[in-house]
């Protein structure tokens, strides 16, 4: 094996604030290299430098022995380095096939031809995506699949994946890892950023750990354990198991009053005769595969989608029938949805952390006067930055410039500012580091202890098991089974979700 990419003393600052300092990184030919670290440690920045999306301020990079300095992703791509970004970069208004072949459609491209080729290609990867579907109609997981497929199709020698598995279900993850191994067997080198340390340990050959923009250590994967990685990431030992199983019934919260009753709710053929109840002072976990209608049901409750007008079923909040036309009405009734797709519909990218938080405050009508209060805005930023441990290099950084995990925290904060009584978290810890996951879980539990009705939608079973006082399983647009986490194991939940 020889080094395919060799980076020496890479440095990067944004307006004087250091994001990376003196980082060395090598990628061997044909290896899978995991890159781990806390939110904001500089993982995305380092890989963006590799892929030419960001220019380094200092340091050198050798690719296949030649010194290179890519100034645009297209240059890196031409050289053979492709990157799958953390936030999707597909064109929503085009079909899957068009996105796959974006940039090198045959001259006078025939739509049909592209579609057929895309179909075969997706099949060869075992990806179940309809090539004719518009990207805007796909869920997060399928979008990610398309992006992965695009990078694979470009036949790059190096493929960089920035948190590729965050949006995938366990089944899809298995496909993805099999795919990584196939790529590796073909001689492709892979850089793989993940907050799921078990994945890094399972799939990678070597691991590099970053902390606060600096390199902590690089080594062969077998020389690490989960705990040693965490210790290196945060610089101290974290005690306690992140995902524990709650097997005593006494530890579960008892149901409070009924908050929501959903009866026979339908929307097209995505949500079909869905029925369940929700109680205050409890965390209700919802598990289901992609396409099980969990997100859609949540969005109907929060007024983002409208259920069918005829035979759309009934929803009652505190015994009152509700039918919202816009999310604003739901919000005023105390129902808030925290999105799974933060970039598309979660945050305001050109605005600061403070303004994002304040937008929630304004929307909730908490600012009585017409005049905005800069003091209140600063206070919110102060409070939530502490509560959620939001890290930015500068205080007025635009949210689009934050690291992925910190963006997620902003989105959560923005919803909590509104003081909801019913809150729905859709994949709340996507892209968040291990330490912050524990904090967010504690926060969610705290909300239930305060008496809120909380829903957590997650594709990650350990998260559901750990957080929920009650587990609902969705399949094909409806709630098919209810479990108590104390009496069930992951296999049974998975079985209910699939069969």
């Amino acid at each position, binding site marked *: 094996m020889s080094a395919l990419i060799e980076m020496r003393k890479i440095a990067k600052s944004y307006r004087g604030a250091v994001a990376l300092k003196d980082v060395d990184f090598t990628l061997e030919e044909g290896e899978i290299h995991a890159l781990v670290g806390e939110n904001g440690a500089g993982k995305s920045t380092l890989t963006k430098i590799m892929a030419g999306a960001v220019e380094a301020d200092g340091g050198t990079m050798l690719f296949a022995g030649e010194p290179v300095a890519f100034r645009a992703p297209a240059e890196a*791509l031409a050289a053979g380095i492709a990157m799958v970004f953390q*936030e999707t970069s597909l*064109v929503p208004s085009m079909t899957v096939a068009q996105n796959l072949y974006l940039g090198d459609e045959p001259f006078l491209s025939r739509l049909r031809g592209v579609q057929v080729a895309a179909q075969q290609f997706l099949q060869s990867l075992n990806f179940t995506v309809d090539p004719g579907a518009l990207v805007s109609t796909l869920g997060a997981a399928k979008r990610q699949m398309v992006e992965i497929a695009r990078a694979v199709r470009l036949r790059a020698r190096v493929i960089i994946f920035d948190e590729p598995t965050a949006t995938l279900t366990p089944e899809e993850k298995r496909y993805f890892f099999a795919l990584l191994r196939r790529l590796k067997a073909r001689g492709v080198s892979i850089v793989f950023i993940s907050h799921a340390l078990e994945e890094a340990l399972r799939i990678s050959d070597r691991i590099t750990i970053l902390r606060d923009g600096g390199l902590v250590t690089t080594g062969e994967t077998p020389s690490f354990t989960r705990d040693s990685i965490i210790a290196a990431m945060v610089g101290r030992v974290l005690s306690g198991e992140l995902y524990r199983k709650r097997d005593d019934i006494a530890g579960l919260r008892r149901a409070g009053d009924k908050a929501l009753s959903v009866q026979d709710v339908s929307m097209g053929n995505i949500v079909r005769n869905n029925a369940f109840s929700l109680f205050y002072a409890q965390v209700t976990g919802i598990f289901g595969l992609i396409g099980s209608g969990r997100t859609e049901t949540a969005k109907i409750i929060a007024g983002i989608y409208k259920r069918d007008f005829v035979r759309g079923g009934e929803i009652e909040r505190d015994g009152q029938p509700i039918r919202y036309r*816009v999310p604003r009405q739901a919000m005023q009734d105390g129902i808030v949805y925290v999105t799974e797709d933060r970039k598309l519909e*979660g945050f305001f*990218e050109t605005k600061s952390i403070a303004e994002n938080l304040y*937008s929630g405050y304004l929307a909730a009508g908490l600012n009585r006067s017409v*005049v905005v209060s800069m003091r209140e805005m600063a206070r919110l930023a102060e409070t939530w930055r502490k509560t959620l441990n939001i890290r930015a290099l500068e205080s007025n950084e635009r949210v689009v410039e934050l690291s992925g995990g910190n963006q997620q925290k902003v989105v959560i904060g923005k919803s909590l500012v509104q003081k909801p009584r019913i809150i729905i978290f859709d994949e709340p810890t996507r892209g968040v580091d291990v330490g912050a996951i524990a904090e967010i879980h504690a926060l969610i539990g705290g909300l239930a202890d305060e008496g809120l009705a909380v829903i957590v939608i997650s594709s990650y079973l350990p998260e559901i098991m750990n957080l929920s006082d009650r587990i609902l399983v969705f399949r094909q647009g409806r709630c098919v089974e209810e479990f108590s986490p104390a009496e069930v194991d992951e296999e049974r939940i998975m079985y209910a979700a699939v069969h």
Partner: protein
Amino acid sequence: MTGWFLLLGRRRQEDTVFLLTILLFLTFSFVLHGFLTTGNIIALLRSVALLGILAVGMGIVVIGRGIDLSLVAILAISVAVFLNLLGQSYPIGIALLLALVGVIAVGALNGVLTAYAEMPAIFATLATGTFVYGLGRSQFLTQDVIYLPPGHDLFTAFGNARLASIPVEVVVFAFILVGAFLWLRFSKYGRYIYLIGDNLNAARNAGLPVRPVIVLQYVVSALLAFVAGLIMAAGIHSMNTRIVNSSLLYDVILVVVIGGIGLSGGKGGVRNLIVGTLLIGILLNGMTILDISDLYQNLIKATVLLAALIVDGVLNPRDEQTDQQGDI
């Protein structure tokens, strides 16, 4: 090439434009006879003020990621109808009120079409603009040019009023600028417009009153068009509805884009409008003194607009990562 744009970008766009404006002003002052005369400067200020008031309206809409192509039609028809009503010896108060109701209705129609019927702003406002012009010309007005009937001394006096030798339109423009600044910066509706322009879906999900605010933004821009029209009529005692077919609308868009209010929404403010207005105002004035024919004026303006749009596209990509992919 991109490196050069980035250099521009590091410095804020409005600073660069401001620099250009000063350069242009100095060049014209030295090169053009009759540019730096009191008479011309006053004429310059008056035309700048009109353009500027319209640009404030357009700017507000563009910040909310819309566009208002009905602006000039509203300006022309509302004021022409107003003058016509005066000609039919309606009292000025009633005439004003009727015109105002019409203006608000058209603004609200723009808003309803874009926010509730979810039509693209560019088509909706193009349609209402054409509709307003067609309706006004066919139903209410008999000629292209409507004159102010005699006997409205108060109105003409307003048009000629000077505040310490500053023309009244400049004073009004200044007031509107201050008002727009305060409203955009410090009122919650102003913040809503920025948030909606930044990310409509996020604004909707957060529970902001998205659709009412969009309607509001078009009503405000229609009202500003009406104000600009009134000032125009007060100065020249008439309204020529053929202005709808002039390049005024494009001048306004030029001001907004040049000033650095990205068409992708959510960005920019009054500062951008001021520098944009000054630059375009000086450019137009200088070209008129140079007696450049309309054809060439349009060519020059179109070139500047294209350049500004390209710079805007590079500096304010909708999505950094998509843009950086380089293949889209």
